């Protein structure tokens, strides 16, 4: 790690005066109740490490990694400590010392090589869809039954939609839609909904034939080298002056562009000017649409039955990007929707990327709480703008729940196209 940055990290952890306010909202600590599992403890441990009082032991590694990076501590810290940044610094150091396990290496190699990813997804489609339908139904990946994992797109989204999609009539604006891997390979329906809605806003949509994975999975695991070329390519492509607005439908891609890229480059002692430009033009599609809601032809005089919908705040949207009113504004504008706020809507779902596979026991308790809060609303549909959250929440729901898990844009698209929302239940 860049020595200058290391100094800054030390100054930051020195500022923790151990008030403990971070412990009250830390989802991991609430499950485990030991000091090593809360942000204050981890910050102190990093401080001792930087002071040379404790080496990077296996236990050190485990303590640093037993964290969802949900950033709840960050927004609640009166001293202004960026826990996420400190922990990511340490994860990077840990990778240097310990490397990554083979599964993560394999995954990140795949994610950082778009060609390889594209061709493997064709096999993955056959593999996943057939295997899970037939053989692996009873298996679990982490806490999630294999049968509840998302299906692979019949054809990658970008293979069908790449290029410039023009609206009927004159275009009111132009956006660059960065689809992300998840929409491209798994959630084509989300991509379709985004395109439908944007078309109704009369904007021209540019979708690149090839884009690089945002790389956040590798970055947050501490591997900064592997995704660096993705990061640099994305920054170069997207910060071009020809691109005004970069839209993402994935909270995590958004967090990468708005925050993680800058942190990574700083950690490496690299220039962040271009990354700052990208940050300035990135918007979550929900932010973009919420600003233009009155331009959408939503039925005004709906008198019929409504469906109850609740919203879950993804960590990477509510805390990493500070987006919380936009999705609610959209949902409340849907005539067929009765919006109900769940308790602790902004609490982490317990997924945390690979956290749920590394620490299934801790993750399970956190997810169960989230599911309980969803059930308590009586909603037939929970929406959230993060694929990770949708997999975790959807995967942890029982068949008896009959609660659909969707991206908010899917609901909006259905409402705009006059579909009877009651049918989603």
């Amino acid at each position: 790690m860049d020595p200058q940055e290391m100094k800054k990290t030390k100054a930051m952890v020195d500022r923790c005066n151990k008030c403990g306010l971070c412990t009250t909202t830390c989802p991991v600590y609430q499950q485990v109740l030991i000091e090593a599992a809360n942000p204050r403890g981890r910050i102190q441990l990093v401080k001792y490490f930087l002071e040379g009082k404790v080496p990077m032991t296996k236990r050190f590694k485990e303590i640093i990694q037993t964290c969802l990076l949900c950033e709840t501590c960050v927004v609640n810290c009166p001293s202004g400590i960026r826990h996420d940044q400190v922990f990511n610094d340490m994860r990077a150091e840990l990778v240097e010392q310990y490397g990554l396990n083979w599964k993560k290496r394999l995954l990140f190699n795949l994610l950082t090589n778009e060609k390889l990813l594209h061709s493997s997804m064709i096999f993955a489609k056959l593999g996943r869809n057939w295997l899970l339908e037939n053989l692996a139904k009873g298996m679990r990946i982490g806490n999630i039954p294999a049968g509840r994992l998302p299906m692979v797109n019949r054809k990658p989204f970008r293979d069908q939609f790449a290029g410039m999609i023009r609206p009927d009539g004159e275009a009111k604006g132009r956006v660059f839609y960065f689809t992300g891997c998840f929409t491209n390979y798994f959630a084509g329906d989300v991509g379709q909904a985004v395109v439908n809605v944007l078309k109704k806003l009369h904007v021209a949509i540019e979708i690149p034939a090839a884009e690089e994975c945002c790389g956040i999975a590798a970055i947050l695991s501490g591997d900064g080298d592997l995704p660096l070329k993705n990061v640099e390519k994305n920054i170069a492509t997207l910060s071009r002056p020809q691109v005004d607005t970069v839209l993402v439908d994935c909270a995590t891609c958004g967090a990468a562009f708005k925050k993680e890229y800058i942190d990574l480059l700083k950690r490496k002692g690299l220039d962040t000017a271009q990354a700052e430009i990208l940050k300035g033009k990135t918007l979550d599609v929900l932010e973009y649409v919420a600003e233009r809601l009155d331009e959408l032809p939503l039925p005004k005089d709906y008198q019929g039955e409504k469906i109850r919908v609740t919203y879950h705040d993804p960590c990477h949207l509510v805390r990493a990007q500070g987006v919380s009113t936009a999705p609610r504004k959209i949902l409340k504008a849907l005539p067929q929707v009765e919006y109900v706020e769940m308790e602790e809507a902004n609490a982490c779902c317990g997924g945390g990327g690979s956290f749920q596979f590394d620490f299934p026991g801790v993750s399970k308790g956190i997810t169960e709480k989230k599911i309980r809060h969803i059930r308590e609303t009586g909603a037939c549909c929970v929406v959230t703008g993060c694929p990770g959250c949708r997999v975790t929440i959807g995967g942890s729901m029982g068949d008896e729940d009959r609660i659909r898990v969707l991206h908010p844009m899917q609901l909006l698209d259905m409402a705009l196209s006059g579909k009877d929302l009651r049918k989603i239940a």
Partner: protein
Amino acid sequence: MLDQRVKDELKAIVGGERYFDNQEDLLLYSYDAYTVQGMPDVALLPVSTEEVSRIMKVASREKIPVTARGAGTNLAGGSVAVKGGIVLVFTKMNKILEIDKANRVAVVQPGVINMDFQKELAKQGLYYPPDPGSMAVSTMGGNVAENAGGPRAVKYGVTKDYLLGVEVVLASGAIMRTGGKTLKNVSGYNLTQLFCGSEGTLGLITEMTFKLIPLPETKRTLQAAYKNLSDAGKTITRVFEIGILPVALEIVDKVCINIIEDYAHMGLPREAEAMLLIEVDGPEAAVTVQSERLTALCREMGAHEVTTARTMPEIDEVWRARRSAYGATARLRSTVIAEDCTVPIGSLIAMFQEVARIAEKYKLLIPVVAHAGDGNLHPQIATDINDKEEMERVAKAMDEISIAAVKLGGTLTGEHGIGIAKRELLPFELGEVATEITRNLKKMFDPLNILNPDKVVLIA
């Protein structure tokens, strides 16, 4: 260093998952919110009174120091194992055992978080008022051990005013129960209250019974900004003179207003020299009248801006910001020492001036927040523990602040406790006779001096 044989014996009591003797985890149980550290030999997380009792039997047999720890938020080093030995962490004994609505009492384990307790009670229309600044974090066991106070002390008193009974594991491992569910009880000495504020030096509290009151119908929180401190000071006196007993009456100085605003972004008056927070509660009609009168009073006394929080989310936001003052002070300098001097209410402004004089004398940055309504000041010394020379000045300033409070007829600490921070000063406030009695009391309960040794009162 503990014998492996003893370690194994302790491990067998709680099991491997609630036992730590590795360096990393022990380091994380070596601190609280004060500046002094102490490395324990083992950390144990019991889940029952019986486990605590068995641990104490081993500890007294082997003469091992035992330090109780809740959430580790103590500001005087009360939960730091300065003599090593066992840290007994109560975070997993966190059950609300009973909310007895008919008798208006609740029975809880020591690891229950104050705010969680309050939330559960509110669901049933019940109220436990003590609200230490750490209430979102700190445990009820720690609250009792420190006799914690908080802003609401003005109207509702402090922890001791709600404590009806305790279950305590003594140094020997014997289990003692005192008090009970009755509001009145004069059978024998008041052993219950002896443990309230005993800072873990007399026994280990494993269960507590609290008195509850009905949840007030509604409340209002006023924020009044002043261009000068003395106008704010005069308002404080006048509030009581016009016949209002507020729930809380807080004063925040300019520096603290600004650091809190840096964190909370709630539009606090950055330009003000001082800000008062005044809360009233009760039936809607009464609260409306009181808040109108208070608004008029503040304006009359020179406040240039008075706002009123009316809804619960607004009010919670105001208090969450106020409670962040300690943490937020770290925005100024990396080390914060929260003082706790308390004076008779009439001497509040005199004490403010003393703090300013001492800050000036030692060239230190000491912003102040205070529970003005009960004379309890929190000068927040902003410093840097790595600066040896400055820390010497800090130590002198801390002593001088405490002594000034006692000289004004006040006390060294209103709610944080003596711990390590003020143990040398205790005799100055208590005097020879009371110090000797305190020491004898400690010796009687803890003849081996294993319960949080070297805290509160120094033996021999």
